């Protein structure tokens, strides 16, 4: 289980708290979708869990162990993974290299199946350099494959659908379901897409750095008035609902 206690993340210049006093308990074998308005703190929260952003306050526990002071690498080795919203390109690093670094099982057949899981033809992609020749969508799918390659306690996916075509999107939702069915991984997906939201056991609504609501997908998707507060998504507005 992943537990956040009063977690805050400050901007680099300490001028503002991007994530403000967040408390969360995330259970294993569940899918959580984090959604909310742009700039609300979703990615910052995920990066704080991964250790990419330091917390300015609070603690993070993984299965009861305080990991707040641990590095990115240490958290990765403890079983946390993070798929970037905009993954970096590498000159000289190939798809095979990246997946081999990530994969617990480095057999070629396993690497091929990882690419198939994200809708990429392994024969065409396994020996391609992760450079500028990759489209954003292709790169994104390799990024997701690099997370699926690992046996994780917590898998964080930051807007995995962004830049991905409709056909691959369908494949992606099936892949998340399969991961959920075949592992105990806590899956956390940052998304705005209805089809992703529908995968969730719980939807976590974040705005202005705070958790505004934790609810079921049907409440958000079935209630036409949920987002109708005119032009304002602040916690106070959500609290009035």
């Amino acid at each position, binding site marked *: 289980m992943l537990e956040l206690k009063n977690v805050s993340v400050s901007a680099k210049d300490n001028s503002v708290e991007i994530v403000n006093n967040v408390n969360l308990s995330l259970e294993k074998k569940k899918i959580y979708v984090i959604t909310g308005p742009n700039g609300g703190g979703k990615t910052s929260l995920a990066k704080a869990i991964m250790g990419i952003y330091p917390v300015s306050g609070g603690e993070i526990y993984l299965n009861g162990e305080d990991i707040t002071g641990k590095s*990115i690498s240490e958290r*990765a*080795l403890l079983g946390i*993974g*993070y798929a*970037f919203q905009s993954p*970096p390109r590498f000159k*000289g690093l190939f798809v095979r*290299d990246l997946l081999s*670094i990530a994969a617990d099982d480095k057999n070629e057949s396993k690497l091929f199946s990882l690419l198939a899981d994200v809708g990429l033809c392994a024969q065409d992609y396994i020996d391609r350099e992760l450079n500028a020749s990759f489209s954003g969508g292709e790169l994104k799918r390799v990024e997701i494959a690099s997370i699926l390659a690992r046996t994780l306690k917590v898998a964080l996916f930051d807007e995995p659908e962004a830049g991905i075509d409709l056909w691959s999107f369908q494949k992606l939702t099936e892949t998340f379901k399969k991961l959920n069915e075949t592992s105990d991984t806590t899956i956390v997906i940052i998304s705005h897409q209805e089809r992703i939201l529908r995968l969730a056991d719980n939807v976590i609504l974040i705005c202005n750095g705070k958790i505004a609501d934790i609810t079921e997908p049907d409440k958000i998707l079935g209630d036409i008035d949920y987002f109708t507060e005119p032009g304002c998504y602040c916690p106070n507005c959500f609290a009035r609902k």
Partner: protein
Amino acid sequence: MLDSIDKKLLKEVADLHEIPQGAYNIRKNGEKLSRNTTANIDIVTKEDKPGIDIIVKPGTKNESVHIPVILSATMDDLVYNTFEIGEDADVIIVAGCGIHNNTGEDSGHDGVHEFFIRRGAKVKYIEKHFGDGDGSGKRTLNPTTIMNIEEGATAELELVQIKGVDNTKRDTVVRLEKDAKLIVSERLLTYFDQTAESIITVELLGSNSSAQVISRSVAQNDSKQIFHLNMRGHTECRGHIQCDSIIMHNAEVSAIPEITALSEGAELVHEAAIGRIASEQLTKLMCLGLNEQEAEETILQGFLA
């Protein structure tokens, strides 16, 4: 006989663990150590100056020539090698030089390689440079490569300097005739106070000739690198030069790409980029469990591979 130092140098510069099969000429400390020729590939000692002529018969296929130079004594070695690659031949040439210097005196090798690649021939030329030893004396390697590629012929050059060379000045000149093709891949690492200068000049003389030159380098510590990549299109042709460098610590890198079109049919492109390792790249690999040093090594190894 090869001693352990020789074997290490040969492994580094020519991937050789023992005396190779096929044609070869091993030069050690300015002298011929060992040579073998085949029915299709002859190697002849020059009479007017130090060096050899490598003659590949027309139509020779799937053969290789190894001509490594190893220096384990302190000296300034100079060699002129000429390669005559017959029409429609298809061969791999593995050159390279390794210097082991355990003294306080400087040691160096200057090699001038001139190629005549005849019509329709294909050559892959691999040149690796390596320095070793605990001595404070400098290890210097200054290769000059002059390549003439005739109609419909292809040359692929893999030029690698990864470790231990204190100073280098590379000068490569390639002339391409009609339908000739050139691919150059240069990889260079410098560290401590090493210096490296690479000048690559490509003359696209014949119609429909094409060239691609990609140079990648990593400069660490207080080392200095300069790249002059020049491409001149004299007729209808295509050319691309690219110079990418990762700079670290207090190093200095200059990349000076130059393209000159002397015909409206010339399509030439140059790109040059110098920068440190992107933090996003490090973070991505650390998210997969590598520590920062492992992530950095992985990025640099891939970049220079």
